[in-house]
């Protein structure tokens, strides 16, 4: 029997109303930021979500954490359906699912000292407080005593991100959603922060959802990776498979865009033409058909592709894979 997933997301959609036109010709359109996404994460797993900016990955992160209420679908955390819970009922759940932010400057209140920042989760949830606990948390993220009195602006970007992680650890959560945790940092610091997350993950048995636009970062970090395009998941599978031999043409294009540190070796790059379409009027059928290099024809424009099996429990939603077994039918919202 497979263990119960810690987080189960079923056909979740998050749409936003967009007011357009002037005062007289007002019309409300729908921005489909997340449009029918399903996945499940087992306890202790690291799950990566990649996609271009505008693909809906940050909205998905905030929907999982119930910052947004999904328009459709269900979210289950440790078996508990949290889709419809209000803020009061979410309180105890929130303690177990926390978020690490991208912008280290904006994620810490500039007027609070490190000590006060780390005290906030403790006092809010009635946990043991005090300087010793704060230093303990700082030591968990590789900082120490000397940082207790500092203000955020007296710390480097990497140090601030460590504080952001320590603030999350204060609650001892089971799930951490990290929304682009390293993309605002220097490359030299990125690896340090990723390694810190990795070691915390194995030491504390955390479950981590890592969101990034850098497929290299996600491939390095995650056991399983999902690729998002225009609010939908187009492919998911074991990290090694998705990042080395992807099945979906969009993922293939993404991978081929990673520069390789091998001078002189010419690789065939898949060049996509055109822009990512607007999520306000997304293409019908397969969302990628407007830019797809292997488009079959009318079926791609008309029908959403089902999920076809790839390897090791992986799948890709592409009509070109129709010789393979179907894992799940097309995910309409």
């Amino acid at each position, binding site marked *: 029997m497979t263990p119960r997933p810690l987080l189960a997301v079923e056909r979740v959609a998050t749409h936003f109303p967009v007011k357009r036109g002037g005062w007289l010709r007002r019309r409300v359109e729908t921005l489909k930021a997340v449009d029918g996404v399903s996945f499940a994460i087992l306890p202790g797993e690291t799950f990566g979500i990649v996609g271009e900016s505008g693909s809906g990955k940050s909205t998905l992160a905030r929907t999982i954490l119930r910052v947004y209420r999904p328009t459709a679908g269900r979210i289950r955390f440790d078996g508990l359906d949290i889709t419809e819970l209000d803020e009061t009922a979410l309180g105890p759940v929130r303690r177990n699912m926390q978020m690490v*932010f991208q912008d280290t400057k904006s994620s*810490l209140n500039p007027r609070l000292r490190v000590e006060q920042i780390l005290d906030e989760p403790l006092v809010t949830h009635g946990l043991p407080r005090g300087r010793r606990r704060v230093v303990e948390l700082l030591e968990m993220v590789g900082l120490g005593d000397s940082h207790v009195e500092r203000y955020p602006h007296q710390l480097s970007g990497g140090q601030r991100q460590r504080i*952001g992680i320590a603030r999350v650890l204060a609650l001892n959560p089971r799930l951490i959603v990290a929304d682009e945790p390293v993309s605002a940092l220097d490359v030299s610091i990125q690896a340090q922060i990723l390694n810190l997350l990795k070691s915390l993950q194995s030491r504390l048995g955390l479950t981590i959802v890592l969101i990034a636009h850098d497929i290299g970062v996600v491939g390095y970090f995650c056991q399983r990776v999902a690729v998002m395009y225009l609010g939908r998941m187009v492919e998911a599978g074991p990290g090694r498979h998705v990042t080395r031999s992807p099945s979906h043409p969009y993922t293939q294009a993404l991978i081929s865009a990673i520069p390789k540190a091998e001078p002189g070796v010419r690789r065939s790059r898949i060049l996509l033409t055109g822009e990512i379409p607007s999520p306000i009027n997304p293409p019908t059928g397969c969302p990628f058909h407007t830019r797809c290099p292997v488009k079959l024809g009318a079926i791609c424009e008309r029908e959403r592709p089902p999920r076809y099996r790839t390897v090791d429990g992986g799948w890709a939603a592409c009509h070109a894979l129709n010789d393979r077994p179907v894992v799940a039918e097309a995910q309409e919202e």
Partner: protein
Amino acid sequence: MLDSFFIELRRSPVLALAAALILAAIAIAVLAPVLAPKDPNLQNLRATLAPPSAGFPLGTDEYGRDLLSRMIFGMRNSLIVGAAVVLLSGLIGAVLGISAGYFGGWLDMVVMRLADIMMAFPYLVLALGLIAALGAGIPSTIVALTVAFAPIYVRIVRSKVLVVKEEAYVEAARLIGVRPRTIAVRHVLPNVAGPMLVQGALTFAFAVLAEASLSFVGLGVPPPAASFGNIIAAGRDHIIDAPWIATSSGVAIVALVLSLLILADGLRDAIDPYQHRL
């Protein structure tokens, strides 16, 4: 923020002078009963409209009252009105501005439309109308000017709150489970305090000016109590034969208001991180 204000003080002699004048004005207002050489309301009909002399350093007015003593108590009344208006309108501005900006919805709609309506009136006309309804006197001057100046505060606080509430640290606090009211007080308020402080100095200047204007037309500080405004009004009738009356309080108003405006400028520079020069 205080550190960077001290840096600004050292950098700008004009700001230092303005700050010193304001401190002196506050000292004069607080110590008025001790500093004033004579009773400001004591009439001396044998020495009316006396020019400055050893006995009356700034001369006397048409009732022979010592002008220096009246100026000292006038400063006290001006600063009492100014400080009360700044504190009250600041408090109203903070509460309504944060509520409207942070919680939004119908509250925001109602508060902001009311503020718009009040800001559509020239503030002196609004204050005049309110005093006409409330009756002249220092308390009703304070109430009228508070009502007149609070909408600007509300607007400034709200606009800053709208920026601050999108910051990730507010979202982080929400995800941690901090209650909305605690977020408003702990995370939003300190980060809107800077602009409020600047607006406080500006409001102080305008309130002093407005109080003088109201007293000038006889609606602010009621005679015989002294105010810069009613001293000027008394001096207007004798601008030729006793110019020291209007001149002294005119100079005092200009100095006080200018100092407050320069202070507001200095505070603005101090809280703006992009203005920092070495």
